[in-house]
């Protein structure tokens, strides 16, 4: 599975949203499914999917799908786009 695909799956599973909704511009707290509770589920999903340990700054900074990619890249997770 590509990293893009893994990321999308993590969002779909943590937020219970459609794959089509997982686009770079999707922002935290702008849809009811991505609230603070779901955010922590998302963090756990991402940690599992990419085998990384995210810190508290990462959690606060992860304000969009695009930002999630940027943060994961710091942990050497590569995205093609």
């Amino acid at each position, binding site marked *: 599975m590509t990293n893009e695909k893994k990321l999308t799956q993590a969002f779909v599973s943590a937020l219970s949203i459609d794959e089509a909704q997982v686009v770079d511009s999707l922002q935290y707290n702008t849809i009811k499914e991505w609230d603070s509770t779901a955010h922590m589920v998302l963090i756990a999903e991402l*940690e599992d999917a990419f085998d990384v*340990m995210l810190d*508290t700054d990462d959690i606060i900074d992860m304000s969009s799908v695009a930002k999630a990619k940027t943060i994961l890249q710091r942990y050497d997770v590569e995205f093609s786009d």
Partner: protein
Amino acid sequence: MLTDREPHLPEIIEEVLGLPVYELLQADKSAYLLPVFNQLHVHHTQQCASYFNAFSSHGSQFKTISELPFVAVRLFKLLNLKSVSEDKVTKCLLSSGTTGSTPSKVYLDAVTSRWQSKALVKIMQQFLGKQRLPMLIIDSPPQTSDGSLNARAAGIQGLGLFGRHHTYALNSDMSINWKAIEQFSAKFANVPTLIFGFTFMVWQHFILELQRTGKQVNLPQGHLFHSGGWKKLAAQEVDNTTFKQVVKRTVGISQVTNFYGMAEQVGSVFMECERGFLHAPVTADIIIRNPYNFKVCARGERGLVQVLSVLPYSYPGFSILTEDLGTLRGTDDCQCGRKGNYFTLHGRLPKVEIRGCSDTSQSPLS
């Protein structure tokens, strides 16, 4: 002084969040925060009718932080105080506090929520670093919510940012979930762990229960953070020192940190330092006031705690007079090295005195 464009209030609040949490000397901090509070006052005057009615006559540019108006904390129970339109509200925080059945209502928008998380993270990082630790929560698992969030769940969620493998130590009937605790302590006995609970819950449903049953829980590398007032414990004659001693004896935890915070000012909490004093972070400040004439108390003098925070943007709660009693212990010179004001708490003001307060109130909201 004149610039092309006055920076917008949200940008200024973001700037405060970027400052070191405990390094500013009080004089510098006050000079920095005064214009922020003045802008918050203007913002709420413009956006909240109840706030306007009570305080617009007080002026708009105050010369010191102590001149700023303050809202009595119980007003959040009586009125729906908000400074954003209904469609901007993302969360309503409900807090029943320790007494009374009418809950406080705190209306949050996306940006205020985000600042609250950020402020709490910055403060907690001073004690825990950036890492997240296995977390034992001395509470029952949250019930499925109906959109509004109670303050207890919100508190757990806030601290939950610092945890992983979140484990709830209590069942929904407040009995101890022995299996969960045993698994947690077996797995994480030799690594640092984060333990969080509300002071009374930790005492009543964890510590006393462990003593009663004689069961052992050993988390020597645990760091317990707890908050939520001493009123119920004072009735059992348990103070901060006793609490620490008994926690150490019962669960082997020597790192115990109390903090003072409230649903009406989530995020900018006052953490206890190694010397046992509560410190104002850069995003907040305290003033101790005489309960009868509201004059600012001198260092060492007991009075009502007024809390100020730069975070409340979606509701007019940046300056609140609490019903808690405290004493300013000093400024800039705590032996722990943190700068700014530090204080201690003495529990709640008796009911009679609160009534005395409102008789002499200066304005409808104080």
